[in-house]
């Protein structure tokens, strides 16, 4: 049994210190994941803390069938989707534009040209498609795993990712310097 599994076992028995250590170890990884799916650093901070609070409450429900980090990703993804659905379209659009502008500015300072092109393209893809593409093609989850995470049929996941990737390709051609495919 490795250190993480021991911490999980102790946390599920009610050990506060073990749970705190477990969450602290996964905090950075989770926040970076949320920055990628939201493209908004401020929202990512809020969502990371909300995910942590939810994990504190639900720790006894973690069954060990997936990695602990995957369990946190599942919670965060569902929270994000719920949040986006609850918000009014206008508020959502304004928040996304502002958040993206900030992120763009921060990356511009660091001269990350590749990221800027990609982020512009990613921002044009819908929230749910972006999330699915990142889970599949960046984190390497299988279609079935993503389907379980988000509670949707794996066929739907597959077709949405295919569709999303096509959209992303189109946006990259429009925004980036990769004109050779046009």
């Amino acid at each position, binding site marked *: 049994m490795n250190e993480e599994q021991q911490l999980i076992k102790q946390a599920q028995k009610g050990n506060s*210190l073990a749970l705190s250590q477990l969450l602290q170890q996964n*905090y950075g990884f989770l926040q*970076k994941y949320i*920055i990628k799916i939201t493209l908004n650093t401020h929202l990512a901070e809020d969502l990371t803390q909300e995910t942590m609070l939810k994990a504190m409450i639900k720790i006894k429900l973690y069954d060990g069938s997936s990695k602990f980090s995957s369990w946190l990703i599942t919670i965060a993804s569902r929270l994000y989707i719920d949040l986006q659905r609850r918000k009014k379209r206008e508020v959502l659009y304004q928040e996304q534009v502002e958040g993206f502008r900030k992120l763009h500015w921060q990356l511009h300072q660091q001269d990350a040209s*590749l*990221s800027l092109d990609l982020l512009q393209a990613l921002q044009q893809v819908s929230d749910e498609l972006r999330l699915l*593409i*990142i889970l599949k093609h*960046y984190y390497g989850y299988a279609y079935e795993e993503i389907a379980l995470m988000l509670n949707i049929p794996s066929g739907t996941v597959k077709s949405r990712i295919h569709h999303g990737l096509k959209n992303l390709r189109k946006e990259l051609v429009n925004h980036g310097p990769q004109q050779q*495919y046009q």
Partner: protein
Amino acid sequence: MDRSSNTNKEAHSISEQEEDTIQQLKQGLDELDQAFSVSTPSLEWFEHNLREQKKIMKARFLRDFAFFLFSAVVIMIVTIAIYRAIPLLFFVVQALGLLILIPIITLQKKQKQVDHS
């Protein structure tokens, strides 16, 4: 024959394009990862939040349990009053219920208004 070879070529180029997109996605997101450093809160922050969550959950449980008990008592008394045909008891319980519930609901509404403001 020509058509099938064209289709094969098209399928091949689509998958190549997809692979190229995935590669760009990975590189771009790696850059994004490196561009932002995350400041992880201290262990005390987690422990403090955990304590607060436990307090909130305990308070919520006590509130729900009290509400359940109160509802059960009211239903029991109303049932007994109806079966034993004691109209006075029935009306007294109704009046008491209203007297207790109205201030609670008013207080909750005020708290919600404060939260929103």
